[in-house]
């Protein structure tokens, strides 16, 4: 850009606004995490101070680990998220390949049918989903959650992946066909490895909503042994509402895994959002 007009004033103002908003965005997280390491008295006397050697205390974390089964919740959340993501990716990629690669009667209609779910939230159907899960005995199992999240994630996955698969070169696939590869091998050996970046984008988009969802765990799987971390911390906090140390520690422990995921995947996530909208 034009460097001759570089002025200091607007730049400083821009940084000022960005720093202010960054502080607003991070302040609550900062307050929760720092206070979770303080003794009860320090939490109230000096809520904004950092924990010092005399106010440092882990009593909240001790309560959380003693009273709540957070490792179990974490494990449940992990299973639900990982299995749902795997199913969304593999089923979504297969359907996207069928729609992008072959011409068959009803192709456009099928694409439209699968795209319906992008705009219509699955929560509207909760009453019937619960009824179905009760009648099939899946209520209070992780399977119920996995099925729901897979169905919820598929429409967008098919949409994004089929746009990507249309870009895979036809020559490559035809070369494979001439060499006698079956359509399945063409999909798994040639096409899948090429759309890996798009798969990563889909995974990152779906990961956070699944991990954070409260509605379906609350309705489909509220039993103790299948609680997810989000529901588990919600219930725990509800019970310990007057024990501020425990509440703050539980919140910090719930923040931690998401933050780790975010730090690991933030580049992929941001690239996904940016490239998706450019198109």
């Amino acid at each position: 850009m034009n460097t001759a007009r570089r002025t200091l004033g607007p730049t400083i103002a821009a940084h000022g606004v960005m720093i202010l908003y960054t502080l607003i965005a991070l302040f609550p997280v900062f307050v929760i995490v720092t206070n979770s390491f303080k003794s009860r008295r320090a939490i109230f006397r000096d809520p904004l101070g950092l924990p010092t050697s005399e106010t440092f205390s882990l009593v909240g974390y001790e309560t959380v680990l003693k009273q709540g089964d957070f490792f179990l919740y974490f494990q449940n959340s992990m299973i639900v998220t990982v299995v749902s993501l795997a199913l969304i990716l593999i089923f979504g990629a297969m359907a996207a390949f069928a729609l992008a690669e072959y011409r068959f009667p009803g192709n456009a209609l099928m694409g439209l049918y699968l795209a319906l779910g992008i705009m219509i939230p699955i929560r509207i159907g909760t009453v019937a989903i619960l009824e179905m899960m009760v009648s099939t005995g899946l209520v209070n199992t992780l399977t119920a959650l996995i099925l729901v999240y897979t169905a919820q994630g598929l429409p967008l996955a098919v949409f994004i992946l089929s746009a990507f698969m249309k870009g895979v070169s036809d020559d490559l696939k035809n070369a494979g066909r001439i060499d006698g590869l079956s359509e399945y091998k063409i999909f798994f050996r040639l096409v899948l490895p090429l759309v890996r970046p798009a798969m990563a984008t889909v995974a990152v988009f779906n990961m956070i909503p699944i991990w954070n969802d409260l509605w379906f765990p609350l309705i489909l799987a509220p039993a103790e042994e299948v609680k997810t971390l989000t529901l588990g911390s919600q219930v725990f906090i509800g019970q310990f509402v007057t024990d501020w140390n425990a509440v703050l520690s539980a919140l910090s422990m719930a923040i931690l895994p998401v933050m780790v995921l975010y730090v690991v995947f933030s580049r992929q996530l941001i690239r996904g959002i940016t490239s998706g909208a450019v198109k």
Partner: protein
Amino acid sequence: MAQPSKKPFRWHIAVFLAPAVFVYTAVMIYPLFNTLRLSLYSRVDQERVWVGLDNFRTLFGDAIWSEQFWNALGNNTWFFVIHMAVQNPIGIALAALLSSPRLRFSAFYRTAIFIPTILSFVIVGFAWKLILSPIWGIAPGMLDAIGLKFLYAPWLGKEEYALTTLSLVSVWQYVGIPMMLIYAALLSIPDEILEAGECDGITGMSAFWKIKLPLILPSIGIISVLTFVANFNAFDLIYAAQGALAGPDFSTDILGTFMYRTFFGFQLQLGDPHMGSTIASAMFGIILIGVCIYLFGIQRRLRSYQF
């Protein structure tokens, strides 16, 4: 998928489509229509009986139900209005600043401002509840420090402020999404257009208003419809911060919490799946109207701006 008889049936297409179509149909589409169907039934003496549109008549006509429904719908509309009026302008402003090529550390700002968006409603709801709580005193203490203590009120506990406060908390959480989408749209504007404007003397703020803003209108349209669907389907934040009763005195009740209470029951009221389905159907109708207005009314007109 009936195949023309000339060619052999291509089984692999069916195999590729089957799992996705099956799961999607069985767990999403079928329950959706089943919910719409259930709203036409009611339970009388342990039996499911067809009642036609009676449930809707109760929902809109019966004083007890309709009052709750209109209250929830009104609150939900206010929730949406605040999002549109606060979240989107802030998101656009942040994106405009971020996309300026001379801004250093923009990757850092982008990452940091997006952090609230990845947190769950449970964390966000409780964190703000604690911060705004008069017991802890972070909010009054900070207002005191800048001499504005008289402004403080227990916002989440007062009927007249609670809903607005929660809407703003939700805005705080979700501002990252419009910011990112607008940022992407701004980056995709070709430099030649901006340079052409510069030759005609359009720079700085007027370049934003006259060139960039019209070009990002399609993204603003998408963001508006995404916000609409998300808001009229919201539940988690209100439930985490105020509980299923959406206190104080139902002043933060929105359609999601209303449906949850009706369908699942709370305290003295028994859960009623049929009335729950009726509310779900009403929500479906509202979302459908919103999406249709966008698809047929707004998107079509915006298309002409795209490159």
